[in-house]
């Protein structure tokens, strides 16, 4: 199925997805939207890992194992991040990171 698709196409697509996710993480006003941007970035990295596995060394399992651990860490990150957002919202009725400045001196 990969006939005629160079590896660089996948890498460029993943780079574009990563930059879009980075923009979402840097520029959004809502903490939940920032987490969405982080999820997009993690997906871009996973595309890269699996593309490298398929093109460079499809007989080894190490690329797939890396991608699996990225999945696991992403799930843990999403659950803890959203719990933190909900807790912060309960305390200050806001999910705007610019207003979360309790630790600021």
């Amino acid at each position: 199925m990969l006939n005629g698709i160079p590896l660089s196409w996948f890498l460029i697509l993943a780079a574009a997805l990563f930059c879009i996710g980075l923009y979402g993480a840097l520029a959004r006003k809502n903490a939940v939207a920032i987490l969405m941007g982080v999820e997009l970035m993690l997906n871009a990295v996973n595309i890269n890992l699996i593309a490298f596995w398929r093109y460079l060394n499809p007989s080894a399992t190490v690329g797939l194992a890396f991608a699996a651990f990225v999945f696991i860490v992403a799930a843990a990150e999403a659950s803890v991040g959203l719990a933190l957002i909900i807790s912060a919202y309960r305390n200050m009725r806001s999910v705007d990171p610019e207003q979360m400045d309790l630790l600021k001196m």
Partner: protein
Amino acid sequence: MTFGQILFILFGLVTIIAAVMVVVRRNLFHAALFLVLSFFGVAALYVLLEAYFFAAAQVLVYVGAISILIIFAVMLTRGVMGGQSGNSQWREAAVICGILLVGLVGLLSPVAINFLGRNFGGLQWRIAGGAAGLPVVSEQILANLGMGFVDLNQYALPFVLSGVLILLAMVGAIWVARERHPAEVLAERKQIAAELAADAAAEAITTPEVAPTEQHAH
């Protein structure tokens, strides 16, 4: 143009456009739904890469679980949406991401680009199989991966540790987001305020104010 190229462009466009909608839509609920579409596009790319297990895992973990978590978070924090979608630094962020994107695409482009006297891009990857074309993925690869996860010489330790990580993340998430009785929260805030006041009083005693008139002594 081959069938694979057409599929790649189709699913790539779906993924990218949905991702752009995620970061620009003002309504967070719509953004979450576009995020689901973007995850589906990535799953289709995994199918194109013949990583079928990861396509299924993507649908289960991202489309099934993480997107539901995000939609729940959006709905639990409702009423704070609206207004502008970007924060005060969104222009700087757009410039940074644009520069990064142009740089990465230049570095990864299949043809070499001459920029300021240097050549960028045109990387030669050592593709498996060489001129004979990509080898087919072994049917055994998934079985090998599963054995690797329980093999002490391969990934058994990281696999067990990731299980511990998931368990700790789950317990921590429940602990952080638990419902607290309002009286308990009030009592805690009063105690913190009392401690802060005591600290301030102690500091005032130990560091007496220096009178400004003593400064010309030397």
